[in-house]
């Protein structure tokens, strides 16, 4: 609440500075009888921005930092015996104190916690006052300085533009930060995992049987029961992806060809969005569909044919995933096929080609790299797909090429391992990060290649 009020006040003050700057510019024009370098409102915006931005910076630094500082400082107030006790965990203690600060009390907390909370509260008040003071100083000085800068020589438009450009530039860094965050979060845990399990065992092992250490310990001491051979997971992923491709590539490609070359504009306007609906359906729905409709259906029709199909089969997951990625292939291919200039088709028809020849000999070859790229992108989508396999493929780490059996995949293992409570020290938990790392490497590799191909192909027409 405090932050909200403070922010509102800051915004109002910066608005005032806008008016100040604007008026000053107006007055300058009136007194000098000469136009300024920039339009008047730029002077206002300049004042307002130069008051607002540094203040916001200060504000955020204060509000973010205080908790960390308090957390460090509060350590002083934790009794030694608590610190020395066997299952001391600072995070838990901190949570206790915070709860106390916020008035959430479960039972009667120890006295020292109440004390610490009181101290914390007093710090909060102090820090709030400090924040207000510092913000006030910042906004007034920076606002006033910028106000002073305004004279008939000053180029406010250029200054404003510089500021806005900087803001824009900073936002583009977020993308990099995200990547760094992803790499950071995955790589560190993976390193810890590979410290426990040799990477060759992980990469080439054929048995996947992770167990929590706790469970292991409790579970009658069967040491070494845990096995982290990821081959079955990769195999499962691969199997399901292949099935998915078998469904989606022909359907997607032929649809794309039909839509872009044969369909009338009405047909196209009707079917293309319809196909894209397939892409808009959430994966969890597909998972549900696969698990509750497709799998039983396969199972029953399999038994009619005398086949034994597992209730959670690779086939069901693959089929449904195939349906899901049809539009990725059809839409992307349709786009690249459409990007082939009409003039090439005209050329073909002008020479007396049939539609078939125009498509097969001119359009598709021209669009081929794009089509391939769309398939690769679809594959990477399939490999990274989670919910369908979690819900329909099962968890049995079978190393099999039989689509009728249950298999498990990299993503479904990650989910099963990481959903719920984790012991961050356990190899099982860490294995999820290692799996994620491999997953990233694989999908990125494919993506990289596909984009490269697409780019090269685009350049041909540009």
């Amino acid at each position: 609440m405090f932050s909200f009020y403070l922010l509102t006040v800051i915004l109002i003050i910066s608005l005032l500075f806008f008016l100040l700057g604007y008026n000053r510019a107006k007055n300058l024009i009136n007194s000098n009888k000469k136009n300024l370098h920039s339009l008047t409102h730029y002077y206002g915006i300049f004042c307002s921005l130069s008051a607002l931005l540094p203040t916001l910076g200060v504000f955020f630094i204060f509000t973010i930092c205080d908790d960390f500082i308090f957390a460090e400082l509060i350590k002083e107030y934790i009794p030694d015996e608590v610190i020395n006790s066997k299952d001391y965990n600072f995070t838990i203690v901190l949570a206790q104190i915070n709860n106390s600060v916020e008035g959430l009390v479960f039972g009667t907390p120890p006295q020292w916690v109440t004390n610490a909370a009181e101290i914390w509260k007093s710090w909060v008040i102090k820090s709030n006052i400090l924040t207000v003071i510092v913000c006030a100083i910042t906004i007034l000085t920076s606002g006033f300085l910028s106000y002073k800068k305004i004279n008939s020589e000053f180029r406010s438009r250029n200054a404003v533009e510089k500021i806005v450009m900087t803001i824009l530039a900073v936002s583009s860094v977020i993308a990099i930060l995200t990547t760094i965050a992803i790499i950071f979060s995955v790589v560190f845990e993976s390193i810890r995992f590979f410290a426990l399990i040799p990477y060759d065992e992980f990469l080439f092992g054929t048995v996947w049987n992770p167990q929590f250490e706790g469970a292991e310990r409790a579970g009658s001491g069967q040491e070494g029961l845990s096995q982290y051979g990821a081959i079955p997971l990769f195999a499962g992923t691969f199997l399901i992806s292949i099935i998915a491709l078998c469904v989606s590539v022909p359907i997607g490609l032929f649809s794309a060809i039909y839509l872009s070359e044969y369909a009338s504009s009405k047909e196209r306007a009707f079917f293309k969005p319809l196909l894209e609906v397939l892409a808009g359906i959430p994966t969890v729905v597909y998972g549900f569909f696969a698990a509750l409709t497709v799998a039983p259906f396969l199972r029953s029709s399999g038994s009619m044919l005398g086949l034994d199909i597992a209730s959670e089969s690779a086939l069901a997951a693959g089929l449904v995933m195939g349906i899901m990625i049809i539009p990725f292939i059809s839409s992307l291919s349709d786009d690249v096929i459409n990007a082939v200039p009409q003039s090439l088709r005209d050329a073909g028809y002008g020479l007396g080609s049939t539609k078939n020849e125009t498509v097969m000999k001119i359009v598709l070859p021209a669009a081929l790299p794009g089509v391939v790229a769309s398939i690769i992108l679809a594959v990477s989508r399939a490999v990274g797909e989670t919910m369908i396999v979690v819900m329909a493929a099962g968890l049995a780490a079978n190393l099999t090429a039989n689509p009728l059996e249950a298999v498990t995949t990299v993503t479904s293992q990650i989910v099963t391992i990481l959903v719920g409570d984790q012991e961050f020290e356990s190899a099982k938990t860490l294995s999820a990060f290692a799996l994620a790392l491999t997953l990233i490497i694989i999908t990125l590799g494919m993506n990289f290649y596909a984009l490269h191909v697409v780019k090269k192909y685009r350049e041909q027409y540009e």
Partner: protein
Amino acid sequence: MLCMLLKNTENNMNKKIINPEDATNIVKNSIVKRRSKDSRLKLFGRVAIGLAVCFLLFLFYSIFTKGYPGFFQYYVTLDINFDRERIDPKGDLSDNSLFDGDASAIVNESLFFIIEPKGRKEKKLAKKIVSSGKDVRIAKMVKDDPGLFGTVTKVKFALDDDIDSFLRGYIKRETPESERRISDKVIGFIDKLNEEGRISYEFSDYILSGSASGNPEMAGIKGAFIGSILTLSVCLLIAFPLGVATAVYLEEIAKKNRITEIIEVNINNLAAVPSVVFGIMGLAIFISIFGMPRSIPLVGGMVLALMTLPTIIISSRAAIRAVPPSVRDAAYGIGASKLQVIFHHVIPLAMPGMLTGTIIGMAQALGETAPLLMIGMVAFIVDIPNSVVDPGTVLPVQIFMWADFAERMFIQKTSAAIIVLLGFLIAMNALAVYLRKKLERRW
């Protein structure tokens, strides 16, 4: 045929190019074969589209047939004596007072009055017929209308999910008693209620207003729905400005150099990172390192924002790139500065594209499940979240959870939730299409 042609062309070998008449003949002779090839390709295309559409229809059909009943359930109508003493002992209508009250007993009495169970065992069975939410329902009714006190009013109560399944015919009377979930006794009770005409099949008032519950008959999607909205709001507020700003920077301002190239590659790669990995990142960064609470829409929104950011950036960039350079030239030529060009021309013209991209990104975020599982939005949360820092869940996760439950009724509820989710999605996509149509300009 070919022989003749060969001869003909041999004569013309010195001329190298076949003469037009021969060419015409050759073409005429091969045309039937070429035409048939043509129709074959067209057929393949039709079949492919047909298959895809069939899949789609089948999916919708199966979801709808399953989900449609999920919006309804069986109710029993009982005469309730609204005795203030028993319902609201403290007489102040406060939660505490109502909690202390004995509404359940009143309901049970009313029920027993009709079906007349004998003995403790039968009474125990009979009590289970009406869903356990009965007291809450009465509490809510009196809160809304204290005038009910002292009256005897007909009130509808949801039936227990097993009874519901029985009434729907999923549990068959013919099945031996040992193999079905409800006993012959209970069936007798129900028959009695039916005879009295007290059982009705109506639109469920739990599905849309209830939240997560262990009792399938009381489970609803309101909590998840609100959670979804909160999460999406956070996601939109973060992703849209960032995405547009980044796109504008990369397309219009940044010089082509190593850094922008790295950023570009980065963004493209982010788009390809599987969503589950974003969940892992959220778990590792926001929760483990920044110490944010689990299960809150704020974190969920942030993770989804980072996940949809590439989508928005890429579509915004495409939209910006589609703004013809001639417009920029025109503005520069008049003496507009770079920022004026961007804000007066490029962004307004690219806005439809940016908005569509954003809506599509949001739709994607709305349906996203895996990353939210990672950051714990899968927790069983009964309360409806009030703010972005209250624990909550979202629709797709709710669906995922329900899909795992064994109770028959959850299948329908899940399907019903899916219908709601799909409706939501279709609305968003329709909005995107509408926007594109409405704002699209030809230049």
